[in-house]
């Protein structure tokens, strides 16, 4: 098990390093001049040049890359360009917290609902219930998050007025109180992921129900509920766990449009704003944080899977 974790960690670090290079290549070949952008069109060229020098934009590329790698290692991406005096990490953390709140709430609703539906659909394969879960899931999961967000906003927020239509909680709202404001965007997450996760779970459960070991259990005279709890779930949830792991990146960094619809200050919008402001450090930091989150999530998913399935452990390790 330890060997597995070490190997897995080593792979993640290699991947992260590659990603840092990709991000660096993308951001360092900026066609525009960040220094000029920061100072505006009316400052003298000398001032711009001086700022560029201060920011290290004239240093050799390898040195800049070295700084970025060091930044990743220490978690310090330096100072923001667009908001001078603020550390990048201090800007990222609140956005990260906001995203986390939304993601956790969304998944807390999505997971039980979709896993239960998936297993039941598999058990009653080809029944009406099964067909509905599959088709409904297919329909909702294909719609872009901002589209379902707008529809939810209109129907539930505006027409029915059951929930706040935007996510700006008034100042001084407590943690619990603020949750009410993010239920609608969380529901948009549910719409995107319910079908996806239900389908993956269903596929795994169908396989389990058709497996020989489930037959063994039935042949032992085991009642259905126990067969499901003991033999079906454990094996069929492995692909589900893997899929959730790979979606964490999107949930934290890809819900840009949804955040915009509900005016919610998450990580995705922060990164886009940084790109538009040519705020290099903030942009790099934000993007790399999303990647790190993805890697942690897939690592945890792999560990969970190998805990659930000892066979996976020995396969991956060798």
């Amino acid at each position, binding site marked *: 098990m330890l060997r597995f974790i070490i190997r897995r960690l080593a792979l993640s670090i290699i991947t992260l390093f590659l990603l840092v290079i990709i991000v660096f290549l993308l951001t360092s070949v900026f066609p525009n001049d960040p220094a000029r952008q920061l100072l505006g069109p009316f400052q003298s060229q000398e001032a711009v040049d001086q700022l560029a020098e201060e920011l290290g934009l004239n240093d050799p590329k390898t040195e800049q890359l070295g700084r970025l790698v060091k930044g990743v290692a220490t978690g310090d991406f330096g100072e923001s360009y667009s908001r001078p005096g603020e550390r990048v990490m201090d800007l990222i953390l609140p956005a990260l917290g906001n995203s986390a709140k939304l993601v956790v709430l969304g998944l807390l609703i999505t997971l039980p609902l979709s896993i239960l539906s998936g297993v039941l659909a598999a058990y009653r*394969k080809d029944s009406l219930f099964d067909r509905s879960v599959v088709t409904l899931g297919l329909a909702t999961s294909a719609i872009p998050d901002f589209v379902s967000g707008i529809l939810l906003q209109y129907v539930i927020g505006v027409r029915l007025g059951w929930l706040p239509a935007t996510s700006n909680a008034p100042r001084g709202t407590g943690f619990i109180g603020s949750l009410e404001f993010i239920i609608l965007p969380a529901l948009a997450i549910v719409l995107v992921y319910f079908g996806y996760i239900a389908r993956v779970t269903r596929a795994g459960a169908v396989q389990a129900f058709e*497996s*020989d*070991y489930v*037959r*063994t*259990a*039935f*042949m*032992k*005279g*085991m*009642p259905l509920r126990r067969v499901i709890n*003991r*033999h079906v779930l*454990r*094996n069929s949830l492995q692909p589900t766990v893997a899929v959730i792991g790979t979606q964490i990146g999107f949930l934290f960094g890809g819900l840009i449009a949804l955040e915009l619809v509900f005016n919610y200050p998450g990580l995705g919008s922060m990164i886009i704003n940084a790109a538009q402001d040519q705020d290099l450090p903030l942009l790099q930091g934000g993007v790399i944080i999303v990647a790190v989150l993805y890697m942690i999530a897939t690592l945890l998913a792999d560990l969970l899977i190998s805990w*659930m*399935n*000892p*066979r996976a452990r*020995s396969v991956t390790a*060798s």
Partner: protein
Amino acid sequence: MSAPASLTDRITSGAMAPALEVVDLHMSYIVRGVPREVLRGVNFHIQPGEAYGLVGESGCGKSTTAYAALRYLPGNGRITQGEIRSGGRDITSMSSKELQAFRSSQASMVYQDPVAAMNPSLKIGRQVEESFKLIGQSASDAKASAYAALEQVRIADPTSVLDRYPHQLSGGMLQRVVIAMALASKPELLVLDEPTTGLDATVEAEVLDLIRALRSETGAAVLLIAHNLGVIRTMCDRVGVMYAGKVIEEGPAQEVFDSPEHPYTVGLLNAIPRAGLRKTDRALYSIPGELPSIGTDLPTCVYIDRCALADEKCKSTPPPATSVGEGHQTFCHHVDRVGELRDAEVGAFSNVSSDDNVLQLTGVAKTFRQAGQDIPALVSVDLGIAEGETLGLVGESGSGKSTMAKTMLGVHSYDPGGDIVLDGVSVPAAATNRTPANSAAMQMVFQNPDSALNRVWTVRRILERSIIKLTGASKDDARARAEDIASAMRLSPRHLDMRPRQLSGGLKQRVAIARAFAGDPKLVVCDEPTSALDVSVQSAILNLLANIQNDQRTSYLFITHDIGVVRYLADRIAVMYLGRIMELGPTDAMFQGVNHPYTEALLSAVPSVDGETRERIPLDGEIPSPKNPPSGCVFHTRCHRFVEGLCDTKEPELREIAPGHMIKCHLDVADLGVVPVQVQRKGSTFGEADGAELQSSDSFDDTVVEGEQVDPEDTVND
């Protein structure tokens, strides 16, 4: 959980109620809304404590019957008529609660592929304990019972096995665990569906021994399904032969196998090489046509379309049960004429092998590298294959048979230092460096034609491409030649424009053979070419191969697990273990002379269709990993003739003990054994088996070391 309700049941229902009684069972699968009949009135019963075998080719409904015995039906399966009774109770009408109780306390099942039968994510202990909890035991009782259950199935170290996951155990060990779970409820009926299929012969023999022993300990009745007729013969008291969803002959196992009285049974038995039959004795019999598909309307005799005896009477009336001996009955109108089929004349093949070697391997070795570790999969093999010869290659899985074949063909490049000489000329190690002539000279027929044929190519394209590549023929010539080869393989022209999945298994294998012969090969490697086929199809393929060899003097390297097949077809046999040839010799010498201890153990493990009784030499443990081969003789860790201080320190040479017969063993010929075989059969048409010359091994006593369980006396027969 409900207490074992069976006690009262057993008393009230009368002790003599059969353990299983299947009465006129009809079953259908609903396919696209249309019911298709798969069982067409199955009748048989099993007395308490009796072992009953069901045999027949795949598709005959034997497994469907077995699962129906525990009312485990596919989602679209329906019992349309008939009854299944166990201990006097009708299973078909039980509620789901009653059914659970029945399964947990009265009947159990063991099936093929023990690896799939166990939940991969749970430790063995939890799964075995579960069986005991289901019959109402407390957690601590179940724990103790699980330990005892593994002891009962002769697992040496239950504590460590209970603490492992299924993937950490071998197939044979897992099958023991599955059997232990099945016995948890002390069932009165044990249903075994191909319990040893997929296991090596040596492991199979151990599992069968175990089942036999447990049967006498527990007194459970057994329903055994197996396609291997030898397994059925050695295990069962009575046997039923199934065809197209019906039992067409039934009787005591010995009688049915020695004097079959139904045309189908006769065909089946004549299709397998048995009782030491050789290709020079006679060709194998094959049954024309194919098994009718499920749902086919068969109002009278189910075998009518393929039967040589069928006449007007067979078309008009269903055959009644005809008694042909004590408890032996057959469903045939023409019992009096079945004898004609038994003695049908078929031709024989001649031995065409010459003394000239087509292929010579010298010091050929193959080492794989995995995770920085060397794995010697093939260790310095010297071997020649003569023109027109069939060299049989046997050994357990993992012994290096396929590696040797693939190294020979250049799929793997052999290690530097070796040499492969084809027709007097060295060939490059890698297939990609070989000339078209080299490639044409050596071809391969694979085990599984589904995998060997590109499923999107037509048969014509498969053949033409090989002809063009291997002979350099023009497109038009290739087209004509493809048609010639196809017809030589008895494929009809319409097959040429089909794709593989539209063909039956036997036809697909013919296409694969045709492809191998596209460039007039000198040597064809046949890697278990018939193991995926039914016996009646197997016989046709073996006949085809022998026929081509007779015509074209092609050499074969024939890899197989089936000792009967290799004995039938091979002129010489090589036995491999851990990438080394342990024994090599003419087929007759292998079966009649002394053997390497490993060969001895392998041969003793084969269950015989002919009722031969033999003392089995157990082969302990599993084949060691080639990563760390044992010191000295690699077989010493499992050898029953192991000599301490010799075998574990020095690797023996391959030496000649008789003309052309070599073994890789330190022991003197006088100290080696012959597989003791005794045939108990009345006069038969199959030719008497080897009058094996028996060697005494009295002098061996001193060399037996502690812990070796085989008494040399046991191996002597008189």
